[in-house]
């Protein structure tokens, strides 16, 4: 699997209701480093889901970035309702076949998944 198989993909809940699109993958560097590695392993921690748009946050998902004000406002508005879903709440991801065809690819979440605050500091 590659990151491109998940990013921009439509997200649905267990009942098939559309929730939005994957706009980013949240990684946490908390795995033990491999032999000879300096950096910790990067674990896929969750998916950032934005309800209305596939377009990028341009970096404004971080609470520390607020300027220039009109651009920050515009992007925050477009991404209002975004949430982070933890990886264990992901029930299925697109099959390789769907990914290759570029059509019909969806990520389905587990019933009773939790929505977390996606903001980065």
């Amino acid at each position, binding site marked *: 699997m590659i990151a491109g198989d998940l990013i921009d993909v439509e997200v649905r809940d267990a009942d098939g209701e559309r929730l939005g699109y994957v706009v980013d993958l949240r990684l946490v560097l908390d795995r033990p480093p491999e032999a000879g590695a300096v950096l910790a392993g990067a674990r896929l921690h969750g998916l950032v889901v934005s309800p209305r748009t596939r377009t*990028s946050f*341009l*970096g404004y998902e971080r609470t*520390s*970035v607020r*300027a*220039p*004000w*009109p*651009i920050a406002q515009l992007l925050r508005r477009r991404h209002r309702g975004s949430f982070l879903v933890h990886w264990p709440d992901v029930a299925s991801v697109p099959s390789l076949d769907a990914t290759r065809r570029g059509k019909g690819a969806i990520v389905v979440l587990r019933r009773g998944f939790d929505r977390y605050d996606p903001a980065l500091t």
Partner: protein
Amino acid sequence: MRGPLAVALGILTAIGGFLDAGDLVTNAVVGSRFGLTLAWVVVMGVIGICVFAHMSGKVAAVSGRATFEIIRERLGPRAAGANLVASLAVTVLTLTAEIGGMALALQLASSVERRLWMPVAALAVWLVLWRVRFQVMENVTGLLGLTLIGFAVALYLLGPDWGELARQTLQPAVPPSEGAAVYWYFAIALLGAAMTPYEVFFFSSGGVEERWTVKDLATSRLNVFVGFPFGGVLSIAIAGCAAVVLLPLGIEVDAMSQIVLPVAQAGGPLLLAVVIVGLVSATTGAALETALSAGYTLSQYLGWSWGKFRRPAEAARFHVAMIVALVVAVGVLMTGVDPIAVTEYSVVFSAVALPLTYLPILVVANDPEYMGEHVNGRVLNAVGTLYLVILVVASAAAVPLMIVTEAGA
């Protein structure tokens, strides 16, 4: 090199390096048709390029990342890819115009057919790119380009009605002989000429070439905020010369040779010779900058190693990109297109490509992960955001106006 001498050198090269074929031609055309009624656009364009060149230079100095790396990083591969294609097209078009401009300027002093000069000019550009040190290249073309001050001298010697020129500048109105659509079309062309995207690609990548650090920020700021406005004054002087001499005679500029006639009238062969040196240097400098920018944008988008500070073999794909750009430019010129017309189109298409280039710069200049404590202040953000709105409007209006006015005919 630091100290007052370096500062002076930086400012002087910024003045000399400000003008390119797009500025020369567009200002002369506009002056011969609209007088100084569009000078306000030059002022606006100069403020805009100062603000964004400063921001892109600041990002390069603090983070070491040049403008197209940032564009790719913030816009993602698709939007940045579209931007790359548009920017490359405009940059190669501008390169074509500059090499054509070099040939036209050389023709003024040599009576050798311009078509013969074109491959020679391109070869000379390539040799400099291949061999000459970045700082030497910048300083020589910049300092020789300073001789374009001859246009300001010429305007002074022509002894124009300063009150009238001031009135045209300060109370702009569409001249009765021209339509409003044509007026606004040329306003966009002037904005595109002053704020051409390659200027920020070049400025930020040049910062990396010269290994700017935070310590160089003050010098860089001085170069931009003093050098560019003086370059803008020269732009207006070119328009002024055309407005004083050519406009009353009903001459509408469509050739490089017409641009220098007011200079000859004012100062004779000596001043003319000085200005022709300036034209050759300005177009050569800009040809180098646009060829480099073609290499910079492509390399930065694709993550290749780039830069004149590396041995050519250590930045092989970057050099290949520049060679291809030069070959394409000469090829386009060899079809017999009028370089002046190419120039006029290149500045308008520049205006179309502006917002996608300037948005990521503004965004990243506010990103503390890149900039640390050097993020933009309020004033810079307010001005930058205002310009972004203006650029979006100009970009959207450019092509419709081009069609309606038949490219300003």
